[in-house]
């Protein structure tokens, strides 16, 4: 509205908001801006604080980064010769994650394909709800199931001396990552343009040919991202592997060997390491390592999703 009206009739007065309303609004917007930055603040804070606790050990002469990364000898409380090698722990994480993915990827992708192409809307909604509930089961409950049910099954059917091992952890982690792979994978399949699907069907392709020749190739980036997010979850998972993989710090030679993962190691030993001790600092350094690994995996997944979207 123009401030002055030249055409005779008196314009209604311009509504004026009270000073309080204006400043209140400004205050709220300030809060909004501040909260908007919170994610950046927190991610930097996490990096800063775990690195701050870990940093002193990097400059200690009793510690070498090469040994930390590439030695399999983890004797943090040895009196005579303390050694902090995390290779066996990394191998444990790798073994469990790889096994979990070998089990979870076919089921996850298969489930996503089934949901998007082979079932009616009712069944789809039901399955999606069940998968969501499956994703909600707390990791400590999974760990408990691994420790009790799964370990007994493994001992019975494989004759392994102990039931808490790579196989157990792998199955539990697979069950935990399948829901993520299914839901993100289904999104990826849904994002394939309808015209592709229609063209394939018009040419007389069966559903299976459609999936195999059209959908999977067209959605491969999204599916890869889904798998990577599953990997990220598997690497970072703590309680389930702590309870289900046993506590042997060793490089596994088979899937029936017990291992310990990077995450489980922190959870198991942090309580016993006095604050500020070298052992404590090394555990924080393991945390930095984990942070970097999972961050790379997640960023890779994000880049792939974003790249796939940009190409459309």
């Amino acid at each position: 509205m123009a401030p002055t009206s030249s055409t005779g009739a008196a314009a209604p007065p311009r509504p004026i908001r009270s000073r309080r309303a204006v400043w209140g609004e400004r205050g709220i917007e300030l809060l909004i801006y501040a909260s908007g930055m919170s994610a950046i603040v927190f991610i930097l804070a996490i990096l800063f604080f775990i690195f701050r606790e870990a940093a002193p050990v990097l400059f200690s002469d009793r510690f070498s980064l090469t040994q930390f990364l590439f030695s399999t000898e983890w004797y943090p409380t040895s009196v005579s010769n303390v050694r902090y090698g995390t290779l066996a722990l990394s191998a444990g994480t790798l073994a469990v994650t790889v096994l979990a993915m070998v089990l979870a990827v076919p089921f996850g992708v298969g489930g996503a394909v089934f949901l998007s192409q082979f079932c009616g809307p009712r069944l789809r909604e039901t399955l999606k709800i069940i998968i969501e509930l499956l994703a909600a089961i707390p990791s400590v409950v999974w760990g408990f199931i691994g420790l009790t049910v799964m370990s007994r099954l493994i001992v019975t059917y494989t004759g392994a001396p102990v039931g808490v091992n790579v196989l157990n952890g792998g199955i539990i982690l697979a069950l935990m990552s399948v829901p993520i792979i299914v839901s993100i994978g289904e999104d990826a399949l849904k994002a394939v343009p309808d015209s592709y699907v229609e063209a394939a069907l018009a040419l007389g392709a069966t559903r299976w040919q459609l999936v195999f020749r059209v959908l999977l190739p067209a959605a491969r980036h999204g599916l890869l991202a889904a798998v990577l997010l599953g990997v990220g979850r598997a690497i970072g998972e703590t309680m389930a592997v702590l309870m289900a993989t046993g506590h042997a710090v060793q490089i596994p030679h088979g899937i029936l060997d017990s291992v310990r993962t990077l995450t489980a190691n922190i959870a198991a030993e942090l309580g016993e390491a006095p604050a500020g001790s070298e052992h404590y600092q090394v555990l924080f350094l393991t945390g930095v390592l984990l942070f970097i690994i999972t961050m790379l995996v997640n960023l890779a997944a994000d880049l792939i999703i974003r790249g796939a979207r940009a190409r459309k």
Partner: protein
Amino acid sequence: MNPPPVIPVSARFTRTPLVVRKERQQAAVRLVLLAMAVLMVLPLLSIISHLIVQAWPALSWEFLVDVPRRGMTEGGIWPALVGTVYLVVISLAVSAPIGVLAAIYLNEYARDNWFTRAINLAVISLAGVPSIVHALFGLGAFVYAARFGYSILAASLTLAIMTLPVIIASTREALAAVPTAFREACWNVGATRWQTIRAIVLPNSISGILTGVILQVSRAAGETAPILFTGAVFFKAVQRGDLFPYRLTDQCMALSMHLYTVSTQVPNVREAIPWATAVVLLGAVLAVNAAAIALRVWLRNRKRW
């Protein structure tokens, strides 16, 4: 000129060998995929039924409101139950407002520039941080640097930061679902940006926002690693049925931690107690999730646009 060959009606729709093969293939694939889907559903059902069967002897009202007795080998889970409620309420009281405001910023205010992209990257990275790293952060930042000590406060703040990125993501999705035309209509009658958000955007997306927050209730209740070293404790003496047994600076028991403790750390626990604890935790988490899902379905059905 030859007349076109006359195909008898009955033969016009016979399935050629190719069609038969394709149909068979299709049926086989469908069966395999169905089996996979069933194999995904089966664990949930079998786990729940197995847990309930094992836990049955210990499940009772008494189990919920009684305190652990005889070095946690008998009795109930009251202190853990209350502790979990404390942790969940405080952590969401912190993370929900920040998360919602952050999502409002990202969806309503932020321009598409490098800074916004940096925030998005931070949200994604924060969502991917392993829970044990959150625990390390909580220990370093809240317990030691901020001098909260091992306390409910430190543990809740750690959980708050863990739930924050997911709340941001789900709220953002809810806000983005409000059509732009709604906002434009409001701007056109002279409303400011914040007035539009308060009067139009939030009322139309509150259901989606709530669903996202409710889902984080169950996540916060189930997480163990972040509270393991920041405020949860094996045992805390509490009056039976006491509703407010803890102060913010106290350590507390929590259901998830209690399950870990009784299943791995305490010898000679009565057989059914860990199972019953697992059932209570799982039941609470699934009930909260089911409520959120029901809310979502109900609201989707009565959505007007």
